[in-house]
């Protein structure tokens, strides 16, 4: 009998302890219920347990976006709409849908990033930063600090996307103003320029100080080269390293039909994810990565025939996706809302292909790659699909084209669309 009482007391104490611990955890994490998803999940196909809603529509050419700790959204527009190139979207009644919109910054561009009390934004030549107040709002919208200027914009691949590390540096992509550094760009049979001169000032990543005004090429570090065009890039917190998604070269068959069939040209070369460290060279325009042969292949402009490899070894990708899917957004997921599998993994927004014809176009989805200890730990998969509409996959008639990615304070995933300007929010609810 005495023994039983003792057990009961022990059990009761354990239960009380458990309740107290739980209360402590829940009060410190402040659980805000997720908003109601759209009945049709915003038209998207998602893995089981995930749902989605449209938080804003018709915003313009929504390129990259950033979500603040308050859940407000900054969107960079490809071209300014009504004189506003940055949108600030808020949801005052907390139903998940944006009900208050304002804008500032009269320039178009792509880069949009929030870090340590500043909003960073890029035009196609410059990078600006705006001081944020304690509510993460821009107090002085008309006087940003111009931190970088004079970057090359020659039309082709002119997006200057940005990301930051934890040591006060900002990384800027300067895309190559060429497909494959031919003497005559995109001209059938034209050969590559010797010692591709584009690489001096483009086709790479430049590192600048995030807090220093008026920097240009001379003030920056030419961090990595041989990267044709990067739109999606992110700092991997687990690895403390820069990761980028390259848009691989176009038109192998159009330009060198004797070496490539239309079928090969539709899937080659790979769209590559690279882990970038200072001084890396990914090989554009001399080589491309062939995901079927699993090796670096000499470009036809530089003596290649679809099989020959280069003498020099360049950086290998960490993930090789099929060709022409056009990765425009990269985000490493650090939230707690999604299941364990997604923690620290990479989401990639694929804008969708245009140069696969006569084969069908592909992409127009958000993909996922699981990561462990800063390295891919499994195969890539399609995470969110259906942006283009179910049937017609063509760049001109696609309903929506995924472009930017951002993580909300509660771990929701936000996706921007630069075709119709739709902003999506994808959520996971435990059953």
């Amino acid at each position, binding site marked *: 009998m005495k023994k039983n009482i003792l057990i009961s007391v022990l059990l009761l104490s354990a239960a009380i302890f458990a309740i107290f611990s739980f209360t402590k955890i829940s009060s410190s994490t402040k659980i805000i219920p997720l908003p109601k998803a759209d009945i049709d999940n915003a038209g998207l196909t998602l893995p089981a347990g995930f749902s989605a809603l449209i938080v804003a529509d018709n915003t313009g050419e929504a390129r990259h976006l950033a979500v603040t700790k308050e859940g407000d959204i900054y969107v960079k527009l490809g071209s300014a709409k009504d004189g506003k190139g940055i949108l600030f979207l808020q949801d005052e009644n907390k139903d998940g849908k944006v009900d208050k919109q304002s804008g500032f910054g009269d320039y178009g561009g792509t880069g949009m990033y929030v870090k340590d009390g500043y909003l960073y934004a890029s035009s196609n030549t410059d990078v600006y930063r705006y001081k944020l107040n304690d509510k993460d709002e821009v107090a002085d919208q008309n006087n940003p600090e111009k931190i970088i200027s004079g970057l090359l914009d*020659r*039309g082709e691949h002119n997006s200057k996307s940005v990301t930051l590390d934890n040591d006060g540096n900002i990384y800027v992509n300067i895309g190559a103003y060429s497909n494959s550094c031919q003497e005559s760009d*995109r001209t*059938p049979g034209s050969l590559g320029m010797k010692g591709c001169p584009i690489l001096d000032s483009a086709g790479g990543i430049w590192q600048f100080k995030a807090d220093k005004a008026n920097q240009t090429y001379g003030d920056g570090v030419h961090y990595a080269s041989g990267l044709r065009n990067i739109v999606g890039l992110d700092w991997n917190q687990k690895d403390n390293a820069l990761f980028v998604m390259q848009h691989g070269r176009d038109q192998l068959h159009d330009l060198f039909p004797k070496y490539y069939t239309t079928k090969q040209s539709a899937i080659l070369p790979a769209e590559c994810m690279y882990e970038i460290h200072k001084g890396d060279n990914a090989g554009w325009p001399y080589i491309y990565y062939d995901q079927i042969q699993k090796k670096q292949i000499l470009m036809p402009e530089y003596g290649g025939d679809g099989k020959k490899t280069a003498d020099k070894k360049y950086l290998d990708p960490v993930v090789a996706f099929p060709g022409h899917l056009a990765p425009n957004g990269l985000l490493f997921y650090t939230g707690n809302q999604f299941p364990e599998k997604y923690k620290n993994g990479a989401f990639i927004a694929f804008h969708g292909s245009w*140069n696969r*014809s006569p084969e069908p176009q592909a992409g127009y989805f958000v993909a996922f790659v699981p990561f462990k200890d800063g390295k891919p730990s499994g195969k890539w998969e399609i995470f969110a699909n259906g942006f283009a509409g179910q049937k017609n996959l*063509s760049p*001109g008639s696609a309903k929506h084209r995924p472009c930017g990615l951002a993580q909300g304070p509660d771990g929701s995933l936000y996706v921007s669309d630069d075709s119709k300007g739709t902003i999506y929010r994808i959520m996971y609810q435990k059953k």
Partner: protein
Amino acid sequence: MPFGLLLTSGKKYSSEENLKTTLPFQKATLPGEKVYKKYCISCHQPDGGGVPHMNPPLINTSFVLGDKEQLIKIVLNGLKNTKIEEKAYTNPMPPLKILKDQEIADVLTYVRNSFGNKASVVTAAEVKLVRSKVK
């Protein structure tokens, strides 16, 4: 009978005159479709709609439906950093001098009469004349 043959046989063209031919397009063989599929389709797309911000559409534009000399010159010389119907496109159009006069005539006739377009034909003689000027 192919248009080229119809237009070039037995008649000599001189000066600008022939660039102003307003011969309507008549549905017949479309040899230009083959050329389009080989040299144009990946950028301008199967429906002529182009790629937003990158490659311009061939529909509803004076660049295609207007002045033939300008249009022929674009094929011969290419086009770069030019706003089309007030929109900018980032990819350059390569010069396609390698195409024969007849191929250019065929493909332009096809483009001017496909995707909902309707405009007069382009002849090999017209292409030849413009080519002689741009050399």
